[in-house]
């Protein structure tokens, strides 16, 4: 099955935009240039439309959160039973019919990275899905173990002071992490041992096979993470990074990956009091590479992802980086940039067509392609909003 998109303003993200054509064949982008003469099974006249790579949400809880009822029976975000639940996987708790998936495809988000929540200092392992609702759940999985979710600050304190009094202060959160790392190293040294799923998961992080993504809002939490990770000779990535602008030079110097957001919440928590739309721009100017923006859906709706990029841009982030922050940068962050995140030959044909520029919040997504197939058409299904 081949599809030719004709005469669109093409935004490859990794190179300058141009008016031209894009050819999809067998799920991949096979050509992307000013004029394509090849014949295709289907041709879409995209005159006046904008063509972008599908957006990538690096941090959300769609499917594990259970939006349909919002009841405890439907909520699999946080495995509260212990502060260290390194062995659990988001993959095993996802409800594929959760309404958030539809919201995402209608918004043009073609890849979703889904993490366990932030109640635990070590919360478990995330999963990356292609958001193709026309195929079964198992077929959507593109990275079974996409990242190791950890959390600092208020959330573990709140969760575990109420729940079994296992953590009362930030000091204990750090101690739990150190102890878990140490336990895994000791486990690794033993020759004969019963299989320990938790230690096995943590060892992957210590051996650099699985990237730790650490929920941290405050600058002091960010620095505590760096202190602990230094002790074990590994490098974290940050999630939320709300006060990243206060330690931007340190993050840049160490070449740390930062996911920033959600940017539009109220300041319900003390640790988000210093949240500002200027953070992404300040990080960029300090030299932090591959800044990623996140909605944390359902914390804010996933269709706010390009609006976050637009407002970050208005507040100092370059336009180029703003577009990258919701496409190629999250792909890099997830180690999937060889497949997704830009319009380049041989990449997966995850593509959106919009009527106005993506960074104009009033745009409509007319088509979303996943793996070369139309996964959403506004004409067929109506506007999803």
């Amino acid at each position: 099955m081949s599809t030719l998109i004709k005469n669109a303003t093409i935004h490859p993200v990794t190179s300058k935009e141009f008016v031209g054509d894009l050819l999809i064949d067998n799920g991949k982008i096979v050509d992307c240039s000013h004029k394509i003469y090849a014949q295709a099974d289907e041709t879409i006249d995209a005159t006046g439309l904008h063509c972008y790579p599908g957006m990538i949400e690096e941090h959300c809880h769609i499917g594990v959160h259970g939006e349909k009822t919002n009841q405890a029976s439907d909520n699999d975000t946080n495995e509260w039973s212990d502060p260290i639940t390194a062995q659990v996987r988001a993959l095993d708790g996802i409800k594929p019919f959760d309404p958030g998936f539809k919201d995402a495809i209608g918004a043009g988000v073609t890849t979703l990275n889904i993490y366990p929540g932030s109640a635990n200092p070590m919360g478990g392992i995330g999963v990356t899905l292609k958001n193709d609702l026309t195929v079964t759940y198992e077929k959507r999985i593109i990275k079974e173990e996409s990242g190791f979710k950890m959390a600092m600050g208020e959330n573990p304190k709140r969760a575990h002071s109420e729940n079994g009094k296992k953590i009362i202060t930030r000091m204990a959160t750090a101690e739990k992490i150190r102890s878990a790392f140490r336990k895994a190293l000791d486990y690794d040294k033993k020759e004969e041992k019963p299989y320990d799923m938790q230690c096995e998961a943590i060892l992957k992080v210590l051996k650099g096979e699985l990237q730790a993504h650490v929920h941290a809002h405050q600058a002091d939490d960010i620095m505590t993470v760096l202190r602990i990770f230094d002790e074990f000779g590994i490098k974290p990535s940050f999630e939320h990074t709300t006060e990243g602008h206060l330690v931007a030079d340190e993050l840049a110097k160490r070449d740390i990956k930062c996911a920033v957001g959600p940017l539009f919440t109220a300041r319900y928590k003390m640790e988000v009091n210093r949240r500002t739309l200027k953070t992404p721009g300040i990080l960029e100017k300090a030299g932090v590479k591959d800044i990623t923006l996140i909605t944390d859906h359902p914390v804010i709706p996933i269709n706010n992802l390009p609006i976050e990029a637009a407002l970050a841009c208005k507040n100092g982030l370059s336009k180029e980086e703003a577009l990258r922050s919701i496409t190629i940068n999250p792909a890099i962050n997830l180690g999937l940039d060889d497949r997704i995140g830009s319009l380049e030959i041989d990449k997966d044909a995850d593509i959106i067509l919009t009527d106005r520029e993506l960074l104009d919040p009033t745009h409509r997504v007319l088509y979303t392609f996943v793996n070369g197939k139309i996964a959403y058409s506004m004409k067929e299904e109506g506007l999803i909003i």
Partner: protein
Amino acid sequence: MILFKNGKCWYEGEFKKLDILVQDGRIKEIASGINPDETMEQIDMDQKTIYPGFIDPHTHVGVFEEKAGGFAGNDVNETSSPVTAGVRALDGLNPLDPGIMEARNAGYTTVCVLPGSANVIGGEGVVIKTAGTVADEMVVKTPKKIVKMAFGRNPQWHWGGRKTLYTRLQVAALVRDNLNKAKDYMNKEEKEYDYNMEVLSGLLKKESVARVHVANLEDIETIKRIMEEYDILYTLDHATALHTDKEVAESLKDVPVILGPLNVAGKSYQTYDLTFKSVQILNELGFKLSMMTDAPVIPLNYGIIQMWLIDKLRMDRKNILDMFTINPAKVLGLEDEIGSLEKGKYADFAVTDGDIFDVNTSIRDTYIAGVSVGGES
């Protein structure tokens, strides 16, 4: 007097280059080519667009403080009893809540502050201007008092655990019981002054408007039944599912509807039908809708995002702007005071450097009664 010279004004449903003369906080004249004299301070608005200050008819700013984070600054629900008609939002309002500062910086000049939705009858709301340090000086007097009520899941959820109220049946019964008591109270010649009963009597005498939190269709119908039974003026706030039944909606055409907050995820039983499409459906049925943020549910500095998202529906932008200006002014009974750039109204402006639907436009200045109070830094 202040002369705002040559601004692009949102006036009578279109943009016009006009001068606005302000005296004692009100618009004395709005016209092109007003001749300045020496009594006038002139402000050049040549590169600016002037919108009437935005109005949010349903917020909790000041009583549900953002920065305090929890108990200390949370005065939104007086959950000592499910009926607290006698309490007033004004008495818990902290003008220094950063949520109010963000409101004025974002071009919102007037907001209604309501008690929360945990209680069946939650207390009196208050309308304020978004600048000041003394709450009483910020108050805008409304022709009718405002009484917050809530039906459905919120009171049920809040009070269920406390064995006071389990079902919607009891929510309705509590409302009827208290209104009946208020009727008796009104008819008694000798009585002890009762704040709860005074407030409810105000509803029965149509001196007050009930602002009713509601999401689901079944609750909308119950509210209609009770309000008609007692002949009470009311509005439907949130009205999340109203668009799902056109027949029900048609029957409520004379009731003001305040939609929102719509830019939220995390669907629940109450919000299962939540969609921006409700704006278009109800607008087409002839409703003059207003839009709320429910701040701090959506902080007011992000209120404008709802305007952009509504624009995805490709409705007439005049209708959209009305939802943030003149329609909420009418809900509050203040359509002769605020909500548009008109002679005699307060000089409340959101001054921008471009089209408000453009993401790169900034609120350069916010004026309340002709005084500059903020803007985006």
